[in-house]
């Protein structure tokens, strides 16, 4: 009987779910392997092999300094992945706490924060990131800081509206009657019930972070050389579009696979 149900659930995976899992899985494999092993030293310069097209030894070719692109893409994917992950965890975490507390308590602070929120969310994230980096200066850690700050309002807004609904439900009243404290109600009772909203929000946030990080690094405001990042590789490749288009196409495709994979996964989390 239980096996039967399992069978049914498994066949329920739609085309989009399957694609999302495969693509996101590919990126994860890339990131995890890149933590321990790259085929070549990603920063090793080889003057004899400048802008070499893909071969068996260098499956993605080499760049304008003869560096192995596969190794650089692995390191770059790792950088983009962890910057985006940290960003969405920090920004999303703080945003969730603010939204949860203000949504549950309401009152003047709630009203004030939401007005500020309205103002901030009107701006596209890359624009805000540019403005913040304009103030605090470029660099890897500044990008994490800038992007985290930017993600706080959208998470706060989503969580607030969730908590506004949940706080009126019976199970919350029950918990209150049982004498549970505010923080216990917010984080132990309500928060797990918002996962259908929270998980897709984190997936979308992650995607926006990937796109914003790639954009900022492309504009040389994010990860600084010689460190590899997907956005940086794209901007470095631009002068060699004519002779070595694979320099641009490969990191670009990795960005697309990353955003598409986690985007499709996020959509499935939302619909369940």
């Amino acid at each position, binding site marked *: 009987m239980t096996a039967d149900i399992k069978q049914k659930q498994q066949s329920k995976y739609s085309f*989009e779910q399957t694609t999302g899992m495969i693509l996101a899985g590919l990126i994860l494999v890339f990131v995890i392997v890149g933590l321990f092993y790259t085929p070549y030293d990603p920063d090793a310069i080889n003057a004899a092999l400048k802008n070499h097209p893909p071969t068996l030894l260098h499956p993605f070719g080499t760049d304008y300094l003869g560096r192995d692109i596969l190794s650089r893409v692995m390191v770059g994917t790792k950088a983009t992945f962890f910057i985006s992950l940290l960003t969405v965890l920090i920004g999303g975490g703080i945003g969730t706490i603010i939204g949860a507390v203000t949504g549950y308590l309401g009152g003047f602070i709630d009203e004030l924060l939401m007005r500020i929120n309205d103002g901030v969310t009107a701006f596209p994230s890359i624009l805000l990131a540019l403005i913040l980096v304009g103030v605090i200066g*470029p660099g890897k850690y500044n990008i994490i800081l800038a992007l985290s700050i930017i993600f706080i309002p959208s998470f706060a807004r989503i969580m607030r509206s969730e908590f506004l609904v949940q706080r009126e439900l019976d199970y919350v009243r029950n918990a209150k009657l049982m004498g549970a404290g505010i923080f216990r109600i917010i984080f132990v009772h309500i928060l797990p019930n918002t996962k259908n909203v929270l998980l897709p929000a984190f997936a979308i946030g992650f995607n926006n972070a990937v796109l914003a990080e790639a954009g900022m690094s492309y504009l*040389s405001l994010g990860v600084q050389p010689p460190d590899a990042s997907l956005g940086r590789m794209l901007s470095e490749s631009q002068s060699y579009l004519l002779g070595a288009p694979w320099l641009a196409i490969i990191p*670009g495709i990795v960005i697309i696979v990353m955003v598409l994979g986690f*985007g499709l996964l996020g959509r499935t989390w939302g619909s369940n």
Partner: protein
Amino acid sequence: MKFFIRRFFTLIITLFFVALLTFLAFEIIPGDAALTRLGIDAEQADIEALREQLGLNQTVLYRFFRFILGAVCGDFGVSIQYKVPVIQLMSERLPVTIWLAGLSMLLILLVSLPLSLVGIESKNGKLHRIITFSNQIIMAVPPFFLGMLFSLIFGIWMKLFVPGSYPGTEMFGKFLRYMIFPAIAVALPKIAMTVNFMQSSVLAQMKQDYVRTAKSKGNSRKRILFHHVLKNALIPSVTFFAMTAADVLAGSIVVEQVFNLPGIGRMLITAISYRDFPVVEAAVLYIAVVVILINFFVDLAYQKLDPRIQITD
């Protein structure tokens, strides 16, 4: 009218706060503006003179009002990097950004509205699913990578334009032919997003009671779609277009870099790297004001379109 006055009041307050934040942000940056401008080797007397000239010896409040007054009159000071008034730099670069963002917006409106009606008739059909899935893929492409792909495909392989050689505004035909490629690069992901949004908006309306009423009165599906549903589905799209307009502005700033366009975006990015603060300050303030104004006008349009929205909120 009451709605308008309320909104206008909020607009003024928002603008004031944006100006205050911009001013404060550049106030807390460590370092002395006079010292930055003259270099570390400068004579103490020169630094003092420049401090006096820039008004750095005055109180913060005085400088803030000078900043506001300057911003209103279009005086943002002098660029550290180019040694010319910031307003001159801005007025040279503004048209390029306006053209790029305007062209992209036009493309989005022209393409996405008809496209969102394709396949909507069969909401679970193959065509609808294909469109939704390809939208997902297009949305995952960063606009600057799209720009690079265009440079490669249309510029290098098909030789429709020379990548990186912005022709200037004098020859309008050439200018437009060059600008169309960055405009498409900015517009394409937004078109995908808009089509997705419009389709779900139309499908949501299709479930409403008035559609059933119209159907029971013997209206054809097509007539219901065009005469009843579309009008209502467009209302939430208005806010969506405001977001898109802001996104297009952001996209233009990055794509300017790909196509070597001398617009506000490139000016801002060079200024950030050079720590050319008067320029950064002006560009930031300008972009913020544009985004706020777009939202203001969309709010007004929204209320005109949907009389159900009252001033209560």
